């Protein structure tokens, strides 16, 4: 594969670690807000390479983890309707709702299908004209344009049995909300693939308003270490800005076609995030023009009362206030085979990544 081996080069890693050691002269806390980064940092053992002064924290970058339990409960309720087929990315299947999960509903014989793409959900809609196909729209800016394109394709083909239940969110409001709440963050390792779509401008208010730098990072060890170095340099020079380390993929203007598609189909709304509560204008609902594809508007359903799990500190972990090892359930009651909270269910969740690479090796 291209551009992977070069960015896993052992000599480059060693050189970068040395440069980080040379420049690290104070305690700093750097947060990544992308599940892909959480996974890569644990997989490659990045924290063990860094000096003690550099603390890496995982933020709310796992879309499954920040999604409300009510969303799962609503999907479960839909799955119990005889005329509905749920289509979803695999990440959501095992996430516990208040009294069930989509996995449990499958075992009861309800029709829940894992898809790789919204385009697969459209194929299912074409092949099952007597059923309502509900696609669970989850993910940040990387994933939103695909869902938007799926809705546009359905509209263009006049497919009337395709619906989206949207839990799509955007990242920058949560990054600001964390600092507003008083979480100590000296720099953001900004998400690489979200920025592929959005470009770098969306983070501009973080250095401007909060004096906190952002470096948009790739996902290989050299990428992450170089981003850490760039942030430490910003901190040392008191020069806070948005920089792009992942320039082989991220352009300052982003992907303008994808952005246009996303803006045409979705509108901003206030949204609930696990650990935060409501964050203003942080979620994406389906625009009025495409309301015929909005499951919430077109398919009313009774949803059970939400019951949160007890003892799980997923919310505090998502804010960087605690690490997975701080949870009394972690590795004992809550494991990757028997997850209690969403952070252990999703492969991008901090608990799952810590468990996988520290316990399972």
């Amino acid at each position, binding site marked *: *594969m*291209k*551009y*992977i081996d*070069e*960015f896993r080069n052992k000599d*480059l890693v060693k*050189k*970068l670690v040395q*440069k980080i050691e040379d420049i690290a002269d104070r305690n700093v806390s750097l947060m990544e807000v*992308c*599940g*892909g980064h959480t996974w890569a940092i644990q997989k490659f053992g990045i924290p063990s390479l860094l000096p003690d002064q550099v603390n890496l924290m995982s933020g709310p*970058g*796992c*879309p*499954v983890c920040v999604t409300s339990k009510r969303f799962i409960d609503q999907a479960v309720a839909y799955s119990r309707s005889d005329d509905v087929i749920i289509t979803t*990315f695999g*990440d959501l299947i095992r996430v516990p709702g208040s009294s069930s999960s989509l996995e449990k509903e499958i075992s009861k014989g309800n029709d829940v299908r894992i898809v*790789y*793409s*919204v*385009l*697969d959900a459209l194929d299912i809609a074409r092949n099952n004209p007597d059923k309502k196909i509900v696609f669970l729209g*989850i*993910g*940040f800016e*990387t*994933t939103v*344009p*695909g869902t938007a*394109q799926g809705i546009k*394709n359905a509209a263009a083909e006049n497919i009337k049995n395709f619906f989206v239940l949207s839990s799509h969110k955007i990242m920058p409001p949560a990054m600001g909300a964390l600092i507003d709440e008083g979480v100590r963050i000296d720099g953001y390792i900004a*998400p690489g*693939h*979200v920025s*592929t*779509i959005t470009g770098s401008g969306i983070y501009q208010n973080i250095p401007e308003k909060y004096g906190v730098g952002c470096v948009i990072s790739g996902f290989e060890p*050299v990428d992450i270490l*170089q981003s850490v170095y760039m942030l430490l340099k910003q901190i040392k020079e008191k020069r806070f800005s948005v920089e792009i*380390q992942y*320039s*082989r*993929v*991220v*352009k300052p203007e982003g*992907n303008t*076609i*994808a952005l246009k*598609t996303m803006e045409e189909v979705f509108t901003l709304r206030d949204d609930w995030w696990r650990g935060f509560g409501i964050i203003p204008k942080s979620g994406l609902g389906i625009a009025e023009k495409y309301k015929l594809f909005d499951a919430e508007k077109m398919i009313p359903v009774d949803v059970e009362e939400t019951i949160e799990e007890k003892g799980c500190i997923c919310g505090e972990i998502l804010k960087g206030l605690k690490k997975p090892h701080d949870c009394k359930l972690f590795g004992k009651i809550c494991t990757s085979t028997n997850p209690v909270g969403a952070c252990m269910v*999703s492969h*991008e969740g901090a608990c799952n990544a810590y468990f996988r690479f520290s316990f399972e090796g």
Partner: protein
Amino acid sequence: MCLSIPGKVKSIDGDKAIVSVGGTEYETSLQLLEDVKVDDYVLVHTGFAIQKLDEEEALETLRLFNELEESNSQDVSDNK
């Protein structure tokens, strides 16, 4: 969820491409990306090509880093 994988475009038919990722070929939509050509490397996410990989930028990132290292070595020897 935001995982995106780089692959090489093997063929294009309208707004669809066959992209090879580590030897496995995937049908990929080109509806979100323009000017894609055969042999380009693209980033694929949930069935859509979302960006082209920029070879010059990749080489530039690696070059800048090596250059930085050389200039540091120079600084060290200058200080001796």
